[in-house]
């Protein structure tokens, strides 16, 4: 998949638009967000003043749960414990941290590199443990994206903001003054046009 198939900064002020484009490129590169944004359109009118940032997102892998990389079973017969057998070691540190937080260090035993035993009621906890979320790449990316847009790209003085955020798009309208309905309309139009070009491609 190509990165940034559409990247437009529109403004009545041509010099400003060019500098803003460089600025956005710098920020996206700094926070390694280039692959996350598929299509991006920005509209700035400093006279109004309004700043509209609309982008279609391409978020990566969904959340990783314990059952995705480990076998979770009852422990030894007659004991209150759950046995976790790791198939991949990549997430062990994060998993251990989560388990320590939830059950306490004294209740976690790791007799072998790939085996973790949790001392808890297996009937109640087995399914909970299977579904426990170890890593959320999407959430991390979204956090970075908000950091980039809200804290670095939108001009600082534009403190009145309205935003929409979903797993497929992000939309920010910002201004120094009260937001006008026509700007919100325009922002919707921009997102729609991005969606259309995505569908046509």
């Amino acid at each position: 998949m190509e990165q940034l198939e559409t990247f437009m900064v529109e403004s009545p002020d041509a010099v400003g638009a060019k500098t803003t484009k460089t600025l956005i490129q710098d920020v996206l590169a700094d926070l390694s967000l280039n692959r996350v944004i598929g299509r991006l359109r920005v509209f700035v009118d400093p006279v109004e003043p309004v700043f509209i940032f609309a982008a279609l997102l391409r978020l990566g892998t969904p959340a990783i749960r314990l059952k995705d990389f480990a076998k979770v079973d009852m422990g030894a017969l007659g004991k209150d414990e759950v046995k976790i057998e790791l198939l991949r070691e990549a997430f062990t540190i994060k998993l251990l941290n989560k388990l320590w937080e939830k059950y306490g260090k004294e209740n976690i035993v790791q007799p072998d590199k790939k085996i973790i035993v949790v001392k808890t009621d297996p009937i109640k906890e087995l399914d909970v443990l299977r579904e426990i979320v170890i890593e959320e790449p999407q959430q991390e990316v979204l956090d970075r994206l908000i950091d980039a847009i809200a804290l670095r790209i939108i001009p600082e003085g534009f403190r009145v903001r309205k935003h929409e955020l979903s797993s497929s798009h992000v939309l920010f309208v910002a201004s120094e003054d009260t937001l006008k309905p026509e700007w919100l309309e325009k922002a919707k139009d921009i997102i729609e046009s991005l969606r259309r070009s995505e569908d046509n491609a």
Partner: protein
Amino acid sequence: MLEPVMYEGGVYKHNQIIELVEDLGGYIIQKNVMQTDVVLLMLVPLNDMDIVEEKARELLGKLTRAPLTGTEIATVAPTLAYHHLPHLDCDVAEFLRKKGAKTNMVGLARGVGKRICQLSAYERDLINEHDLAVFILGNYEHCIIEKSKRLYEGIEVPIVVTGAPELKLEDVPNATAYVGSFGRILHHMRHSEELRTLDKLADVIGKVLDNVRQEIAKDPPSVAPPRIKKEIEEQIPEIIDSLHPLPITLQMNGARVKLPYEEYHEKLENIQFVEGMSMKDVAQVLPSKMRNFVLIRARPKSETGFVI
């Protein structure tokens, strides 16, 4: 008339140039030794420039005019946020420092926006303690012009404004000079054209400061700021223990001394000059807005009637 110059050369025998300048009645303002290289910022009497140039040639060093030497410049950003830091603001401050100025960064509390921007009384007074203020503004022509109408209220020092569009000075209200091709840049300025832009900024600031120098020369200070520095270093030994960068920062019309005002202002006022005056006869010793430092402002000749 003292001329601000920068000497770049080897460490070997560089003492000779220091001694020569001091013998001629000039001053060494700063000495930076970097491994085998040395950079000296100094003030040399204009009439004796040839002798110093000759010596520099003999030592295979380079002598360049550095009009920013001995000045303190405020680089002002609308706030201290990611929008302005570390790039651009720090780049500008560092570049001016390389050219010989002492720069202080000022982040305004409510400097953002074209309609809502404000300058507090404290910020205004702090900026007025400098020789010049560089306001680093953004990308859009309209915003720079609107903001300039209100943001610099009460600032009496020359104001240099930077921004993305190439504007004429007449279009930017209240500014002394304007430099384009900057804008809000969020990467390190290291490409050749960006470095040229920084060079241009340094040139413009140099010209503005030269004009100020000419103005000051019409009614010269009773005591030259480097002389103030020299006497403080000789008579108040505690200054050596001050760990602040440049404990005595020279300005065009005085100096900032990084010692607590309450404790030291009497000592500073009573510094004696060989001509028979004390510091309070030729300069005002004032509390600075920066921490609890001391600000020394030389009195003009028209007030005292003499120049030492």
